[in-house]
């Protein structure tokens, strides 16, 4: 089996070590004998959308985010179509914001988004920073997500937008409605850094399995891995929110 990952804007969008998510995806595939390859696409370079089963976007600072927003105008349609066709996608923080309908900055400027997610973002008054725990349900399995958030944008889901999870601790999408992130088909947007996937291996495996399903047209069953360290790291992160 093989899996092809397109890492979009790896240099521009990696503010909180979001490349850790890629390290985890690659290793969890290799340990299972899946032939995995990551190709990087910066501004001005577009992947052949059908060749990839997984798309990844990390978070970035304001300046980088502006450069990416401009370039995404050319990639947006291809990316949205791939997701419609079942490709998996993970977008963190700034990447998540840019895939929504728009982002309105504190200065009142509006950055157009790709519109792939039913969500929009407005600049908030204060930064939302800290450890997060959210409860989620993926393919009927309940799971607890742990991570760290650091954002000032507040994201609101519009009609039909399904949150990735419900906040147990932390701020999530907007610090108001208790939602965190978004999920649409096999595409996930979230504010959780940390990085997210190392200490949430079920989510990593969910995304790998969805990518393989898209390529091979049938549900992929992944061999189990020894996740004792992952579980301990998860628990240590959750413990930070319980005192």
């Amino acid at each position, binding site marked *: 089996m093989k899996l092809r990952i397109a890492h979009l804007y790896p240099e521009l969008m990696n*503010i909180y070590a979001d490349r850790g998510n890629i*390290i985890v995806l690659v*290793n969890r595939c290799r340990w299972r004998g899946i032939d995995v390859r990551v190709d990087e696409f910066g501004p001005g370079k577009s992947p052949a959308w059908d060749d990839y089963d997984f798309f990844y976007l990390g978070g970035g600072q304001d*300046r980088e985010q502006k450069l990416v927003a401009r370039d995404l105008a050319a990639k947006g349609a291809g990316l949205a179509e791939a997701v419609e066709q079942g490709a998996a996608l993970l977008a963190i923080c700034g990447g998540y914001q840019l895939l929504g309908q728009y982002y309105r900055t504190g200065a009142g400027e509006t950055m157009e988004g790709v519109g792939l997610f039913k969500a929009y973002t407005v600049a908030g008054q204060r930064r939302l920073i800290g450890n997060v725990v959210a409860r989620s349900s993926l393919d009927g399995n309940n799971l607890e997500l742990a991570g760290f958030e650091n954002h000032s944008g507040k994201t609101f889901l519009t009609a039909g937008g399904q949150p990735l999870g419900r906040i147990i601790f932390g701020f999530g999408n907007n610090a108001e409605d208790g939602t965190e992130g978004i999920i649409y088909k096999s595409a996930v947007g979230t504010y959780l850094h*940390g990085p997210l996937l*190392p200490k949430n291996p079920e989510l990593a495996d969910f995304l790998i399995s969805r990518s393989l399903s898209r390529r091979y047209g049938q549900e992929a069953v992944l061999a189990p891995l020894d996740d004792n360290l992952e579980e301990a790291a998860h628990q240590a992160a959750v413990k930070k929110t319980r005192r």
Partner: protein
Amino acid sequence: MNKIDEFTPGISAKVALARAVGSLSSRLGYGGTTLPGRIIRFFDGDISQRLISRISQGCILVSATNGKTTTSSIIDSILKENGAQVARNREGANLAAGVATALLKNASSGGRPAADIGLFEVDEAVFPELASQLDPRAVLLINLFRDQLDRYGELEHIAEMWRAAVQRLGRAVLIINADDPLVAGMAKLRPEASLCFGIEDAAAGGLVMQHASDSKYCTVCGHSFEYEVFFMGHLGKYHCPNCGNRRPSPAVSAENVRLDGMRGSSFDLVTPRWRQTIRISLPGLYNVYNALGAAACGYSLDVAPEQIKSGLERFSAAFGRVERLRIGGKTVCLLLVKNPAGFNEVVRTLLIEPGRKNLLLALNDRIADGRDISWIWDVDLEALGDKKVSATCTGTRAAEMAMRLKYAGLDASRLRVRPDLSAALKVAMAHTRDGETLYVLPTYTAMLAIRRIIHKHFQPEDEMADLVWR
């Protein structure tokens, strides 16, 4: 009018009270590095300015993400060679209260300073405030890296604050790292009073950028920089092909750099007036930068070349940044790691060392460490993956550290997780053979705790505070 008369009546009482509280607090074991300053600033917010105004040679401010304590220690050593009495803040007490405390400790109870010159390492976020209050005679800005963003907001914001502060500087000479594009451009803001330093030895760097690189885009026009060579992180020889912005040519530079792993480094120190070979007993290219910044500072203050050389060569390792202890037949080295750039340099230095590497990695996530530990995923730890490494992980986020090493390619059989620091230190020592070295890589609060544990339980044969690298 004599300056002493400018003091309000009652200054003596305030100084005396603050000093008394400070000494009581140290005797009770709470340390006395900021409390006296906090007290007197409560009564008298301008105290630091007024004490500084009475120090004959004014003060030097040193700021950076990485290296401010070590560099300040080297400058201290250089100034002492020059016979100066230095008032200095200690032990990472680098906020306004720490500076006020240092000035108080140095002053007589009447508020008369004993020092000829002040030397203060200051936190990146408080540098602007202190620069405008203290009217320094020299300002040394060494680098800006990603560090603890959950506390300070984003890197660009700090660079912006620094630029504004530099524009408001009074008499100061600005000493700037030419190799860091985030700070180098500031030299242009006061061309008549700035001095750049940098490395002029392409062989000391690499052609590939490390993952944890922070500034790849031109600070003037936003286009990607082109690099001839990378020294560490985003530090290197760069230029912008779009607008022509480029690394300023350094007046003080290091040539013929030779890195000898943990034993130290040597280089030729070159200034517009002289050159000489320097041997420092601190490991890694990052310490070459620290030495170079300190030398440039000494040069700008007209310290004689032989005093700069002996100051550089004689100083002892600064508080925990690098320490080496002998315990029984084993050696313990403490190497502070607090952000990806610094951690990468520590890894690069360890890789030069031959043989098996015994590591104790201590990852805490308290406020002083940065609550967001994601940065460990930006360190190029994959370099250790296929080497002979035995690692014990400890601290509040021990499991995440171990998991990072697992994903970097370390076999689980070589990884141990012991969140409790004392237990971890014992285990790590037991796994270190006689004659071998245990490298302890702690974050800030873990370092303080581990130092206490070592002193209490292990009876090192060296006095920690005066260790000199050999």
